[in-house]
C-alpha cells in the first residue's frame, strides 16, 4: 500500500461544542490506483484529506487518534520540518476553487516555480523554465507568454490546470484531489478530469479523488469509499457498487442521480438532513434517514463488515440491501 489511513479521528472545537468530523476512518490507496471518496458536505471526506496532508486548520481542528502510513512511515508522528518535505513533493493536493486557492498577487509562473526553488533549491530562472514546461504538460496554450500572467487572467478550466500542474511539479507518488471539477462548467469538467486521469496513469501515481458527484466517479475510479458522518459506510470496487450497493445510503445516492431512461418520474431524494456533527445520532448515524432502519440500528453502531475480499459495508442489513 502506498498510503494507508488507520482508524483516524478528527475533532473540531467550536464555540458551541466539539464537532466530531472524522470518527475512525480507514482506507488505503496503491500506486497507480484511484480511490474515490464519496459523501455529502460534512461527511468528513475533505477533513480526512486535510489530516493526511497535515493542513487541518488548527485550532480548531485536531487529530485525536489514528495513523497515516505513507510508504510505511506514520506521517502523524513526523516532525513538522520533515512533514513539510513530504507535502507537495511526495503527496500533493489539488483544491476545489482554483481562483481562491492561487495567490492573487503572484504570477502563475512564480507560484509554479516556487516548488522547484523551495524543494529542489533551483535558481529562479531555471524554475521559470520548469514552470513553462509544466504549463505545456497540462496543455495551457501559449505557456511561454502566459507564465507571467496572474490567476485572475485565466479561465476557470485553465486555472484548475495550473493547480494540477502545481501538484504534478515534483512528480509526487500520491495526489489528493478535493472536488477538482466542482467549480467548473460541465463541459470543462470532463476535460480537466480526463487530463488528471491521463497524467495519473502516465506517472503511475496514487489518486484520492474526493467528490460528491457519482457521475465523475464511474469513469475514473477503481474503488469507492462512501463516507457518512465521519465514518466509511461502504467500500468496494466501482463496478460492484454500481451493480448492487451494500448500504442503504449508497443506494440512496445512486437513486438520486437523474436518469434518462426514467424521464418523467419524480427524482428520488434521501429524506431528512445530514447529521449534526456536534450530536451524531446513536447507533448507525444514518438511521433517522434510513428506509430500512430497525431497533438495532438505533442501539448499535454497525461494524464495517468484510463482504468478500474487496468489499466492506457498515450496515446491519447489508445482505438485504444487496438483494435490493
Amino acid at each position, binding site marked *: 500500500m502506498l498510503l494507508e489511513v488507520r482508524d483516524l479521528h478528527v475533532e*473540531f472545537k467550536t*464555540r*458551541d461544542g466539539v*464537532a466530531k*468530523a472524522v470518527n475512525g476512518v480507514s482506507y488505503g490507496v496503491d500506486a497507480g490506483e484511484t480511490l474515490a471518496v464519496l459523501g455529502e*458536505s*460534512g461527511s*468528513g471526506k*475533505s*477533513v480526512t484529506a*486535510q489530516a493526511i496532508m497535515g493542513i487541518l*486548520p488548527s485550532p*480548531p481542528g485536531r487529530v485525536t487518534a489514528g495513523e497515516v502510513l505513507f510508504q510505511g512511515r506514520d506521517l502523524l508522528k513526523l516532525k513538522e520540518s520533515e512533514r513539510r518535505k513530504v507535502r507537495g513533493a511526495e503527496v500533493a493536493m489539488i483544491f476545489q476553487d482554483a481562483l481562491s486557492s492561487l495567490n492573487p498577487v503572484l504570477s502563475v509562473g512564480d507560484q509554479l516555480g516556487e516548488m522547484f526553488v523551495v524543494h529542489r533549491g533551483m535558481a529562479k530562472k531555471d524554475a521559470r523554465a520548469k514552470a513553462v514546461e509544466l504549463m505545456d504538460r497540462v496543455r495551457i496554450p501559449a505557456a511561454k507568454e502566459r507564465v507571467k500572467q496572474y490567476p485572475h487572467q485565466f479561465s476557470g478550466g485553465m486555472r484548475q490546470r495550473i493547480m494540477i500542474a502545481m501538484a504534478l511539479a515534483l512528480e509526487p507518488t500520491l495526489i489528493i484531489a478535493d472536488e477538482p471539477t466542482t467549480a467548473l462548467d460541465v463541459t470543462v469538467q470532463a476535460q480537466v478530469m480526463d487530463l488528471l486521469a491521463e497524467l495519473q496513469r502516465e506517472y503511475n501515481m496514487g489518486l484520492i479523488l474526493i467528490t460528491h458527484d457519482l457521475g465523475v466517479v464511474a469513469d475514473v475510479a477503481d474503488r469507492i469509499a462512501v463516507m457518512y458522518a465521519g465514518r466509511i459506510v461502504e467500500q468496494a470496487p466501482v463496478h460492484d457498487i454500481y451493480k448492487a450497493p451494500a448500504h442503504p445510503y449508497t443506494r440512496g445516492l445512486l437513486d438520486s442521480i437523474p436518469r434518462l431512461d426514467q424521464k418523467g418520474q419524480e427524482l428520488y431524494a434521501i429524506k431528512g*438532513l*445530514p*447529521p*449534526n*456533527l*456536534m450530536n451524531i445520532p446513536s447507533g448507525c448515524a444514518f438511521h433517522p434517514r434510513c428506509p430500512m432502519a430497525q431497533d438495532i440500528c438505533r442501539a448499535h453502531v454497525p461494524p464495517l463488515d468484510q463482504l468478500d475480499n474487496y468489499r466492506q459495508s457498515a450496515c446491519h442489513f447489508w445482505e438485504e440491501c444487496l438483494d435490493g
Partner: protein
Amino acid sequence: MPEPTAPAAPQAVARSLRSDAIRHLLRNPVFVLSALVIIFLIVISLWPSLIASGNPLKCDLAKAQQGSQPGHPFGYDGQGCDVYTRTVYGARTSVTVGVCATLGVTVLGSVLGGLAGFFGGLWDTILSRITDIFFAIPVVLGGLALLSVVTGGTVWPVIGFMVLLGWPQVSRIARGSVITAKQNDYVQAARALGASNSRLLLRHIAPNAVAPVIVVATIALGTYISLEATLSYLGVGLKPPTVSWGIDISAASPYIRNAPHMLLWPAGALAVTVLAFIMLGDAVRDALDPKLR
C-alpha cells in the same frame, strides 16, 4: 474552509442571527463592562448631584492648585474649584456633545448616503464629489477655521460643526451598504413583485444596511467627545462657564509640572469615556459580523 457546520433549516438560521448577536454580546465581558460605564455616564450627566454635592462654579482662589484632601478627593484646580465636582459635571457636556453630534451625523449621513446609494445616477455622483471635498479638509483645521469666528463657546456651535464635517463619513458607509443590500435577491424579488420605492427602502433595504452604520456611529461618538476636548484645548471649542473636560485639561496644561492632578483627573475621565464608546462599537461589530467569530 470545509469546516463542519451544524446543519439547520434556513429560516431558523435567519431568525437566530439577531438573537445570536445579542446573546454573543451579553457573553462578551468587554461589551458588558463598557455598557455599564456608559449607563453610569448617562446617569451622572442627567443627575450629577447624585454623586457630587458641590457646585462646579463655586471656587475659592485661596485653594488654587491644592492637592487631594478630605471631602475633595481630586483636589482643586487653578481657580480653586473642586476638581471632583467639575469632573462629574463635565460628563454632561461630553455626553451631550457626543450624543447630539452622533445623532445629527447619523441622521444626515444615512439619509443622504442611503438615498444616493438607492437612486444612483447624477445625485450619487454629486454627493460622492461633495463627500470627497469634505474628506480633503483636515478636521481639526476645519474646526479651528469655523469655530474661531463663531463666538459663544456653548456646545451648539461645536455640535453643528461636527455634524457639518462629520456626515460624509457616515454617508459613505450608508451608501455602500445600501448598494450592497440593494443587490440582494430578495430585494430584486420584492421589486419584481411591484413594491414601491419607499417600501423597498424602509422594509427591505434599511434593516439590512443599518448594521455598519450603527458600528461606525458608536465608534464615532467616542471620537466626537475626544474632538470636543481637542477643540477646547485649542481655544476654539467650549468656553467657561460651560464645564467641560477639554476646558479643564486646557486650563491645567500650563501647571502640569507642579499640579498634574488638575490635568490627570479630567483627562482620565475623558479617556475612560471615549474608551467605553469605542469598545462598545468594537464589540457590536464583532457580534454583527459572523465572519470574524
